[in-house]
């Protein structure tokens, strides 16, 4: 087989995959707006997806804020602009690192667990059983996970933004000697609504990616424990790629359009 036809096949498989994922997304929206909302299920998922992810999200963003401040200090000190570290950390965290790092952490932790759970249900015929009991699996399983992720990921991102900035504050104030009040002012002054909005908007997109890919890979699991492992790995890898790719796309859109 020549390289062109192999590339064509891969491309076709990619579009097939994205088509199937889009159908699941559409069906999720359909069931979300046309059936009763299962408050208890959503709250339960919000706890699993959001509250349980909080410690690792906080830890990651705190260290990122510290590292960001230290690395930029390395450059900024050369041009005597250490004051601007506060602004740099604030803008980097809200526009980029807060949403992306939180999404990657949640994709690894929650996306994998959604796929493993639904995949196990699939191979043990629990999803078929749901259908025989006249319950729609998308309404029962996907909608609560989707809604919980879409609500909790932006909230986690807000926490990540704050804690990341706090990490930068620790370096700026206690290591570089910037005064507390100047650091705070340099943090919030350059921040505009569009910076915060673009970060949170991206986190909603990432939440859609994580939940839909996680559920889709779970639903198409086949072949017992080995299949569950394969789907879980695929779910995390595909979510990571789509998060990075969509981050690039939406960053470019926000940069050029606003």
């Amino acid at each position, binding site marked *: 087989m020549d390289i062109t036809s192999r590339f064509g096949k891969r491309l076709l498989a990619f579009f097939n995959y994205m088509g199937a994922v889009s159908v699941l997304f559409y069906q999720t929206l359909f069931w979300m707006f046309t059936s009763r909302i299962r408050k208890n299920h959503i709250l339960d998922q919000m706890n699993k997806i959001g509250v349980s992810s909080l410690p690792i999200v906080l830890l990651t963003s705190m260290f990122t804020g510290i590292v960001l401040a230290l690395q930029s200090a390395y450059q900024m000190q050369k041009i005597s602009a250490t004051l601007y570290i506060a602004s740099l950390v604030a803008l980097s965290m809200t526009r980029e690192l807060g949403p992306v790092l939180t999404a990657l952490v949640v994709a690894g932790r929650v996306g994998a667990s959604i796929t493993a759970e639904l995949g*196990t*249900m699939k191979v*043990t*015929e*629990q999803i*078929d*059983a*749901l*259908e*025989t*009991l*006249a*319950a*729609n699996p998308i309404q029962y399983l996907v909608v609560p996970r989707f809604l919980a992720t879409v609500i909790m990921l932006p909230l986690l991102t807000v926490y990540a933004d704050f804690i990341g900035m706090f990490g930068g504050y620790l370096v700026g104030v206690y290591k570089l000697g910037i005064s507390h009040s100047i650091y705070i002012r340099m943090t919030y002054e350059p921040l505009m609504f569009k910076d915060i909005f673009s970060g949170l908007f991206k986190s909603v997109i990432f939440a859609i990616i994580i939940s839909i890919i996680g559920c889709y890979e779970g639903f198409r699991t086949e072949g017992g424990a080995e299949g569950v492992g394969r789907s879980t790995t695929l779910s995390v890898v595909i979510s990571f790629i789509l998060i990075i790719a969509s981050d690039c796309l939406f960053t470019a859109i926000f940069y050029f359009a606003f």
Partner: protein
Amino acid sequence: MIEIINICKSFEDHLVLDSLNLTIQAGETMVIIGRSGCGKSVLLKHIIGILKPDSGQVIIDGNDITRMSEKELNNLRLKFGMLFQGAALFDSLTIGENVGFSLKERRYDEAAINSRVKECLAMVGLKGIDDLKPSELSGGMRKRAGLARAICTNPQIVLYDEPTTGVDPIMADAVNELIIELHKRLNITSIVVTHDMVSAYKVATRVAMLYKGKIIEVGTPEEIKNTKNPIVHQFIKGLAAGPITEEG
């Protein structure tokens, strides 16, 4: 009455059901036998509408379910109960919640659900285990709990996928007795998929053999025992040598 007319189903290039025809009368217990992987469970999933055939019809009480919308199918499924091979109990729910799942989905009040759950669990000999999780039960108990879930809504048709597979012979006989008792007591139509001939002879009103995607013989247990068909004969006698193994 259930009529399966000319259904074909392929998975990728593998033809599993090949213009299959079968009629199941109301109130009878039809046992479908065949080798592992021959498509018995696939046929069962077509009857309850989880799988759609590539062509052909599945007519239940005069309605073709292959043309039904999701909503119509869900309404029709209220007539059905299904026991899965591995019971397929929901891991995250207790046994009581599993059994009462359908009723809760239909928003029955809590007291009515609890009383029906207890009644069904008692019917399958599992009193007082409502609060246990499926992982705390043995294979046989899980099967019986699955059966309690299948009959909780008073279905008119119950489908059994390998009800005696994976349980010890004594428990297998208890499951058979349960199928017979439920059939007598509730006068339901039962479709049992199995390759366990002891179970097949015990519970069946009629037996149908599925081979290479088609039903090759249908008859009462006596007729099947005295079959002239060499394929059916090899299968029911469990012989290693014969047309099935020769044809591959």
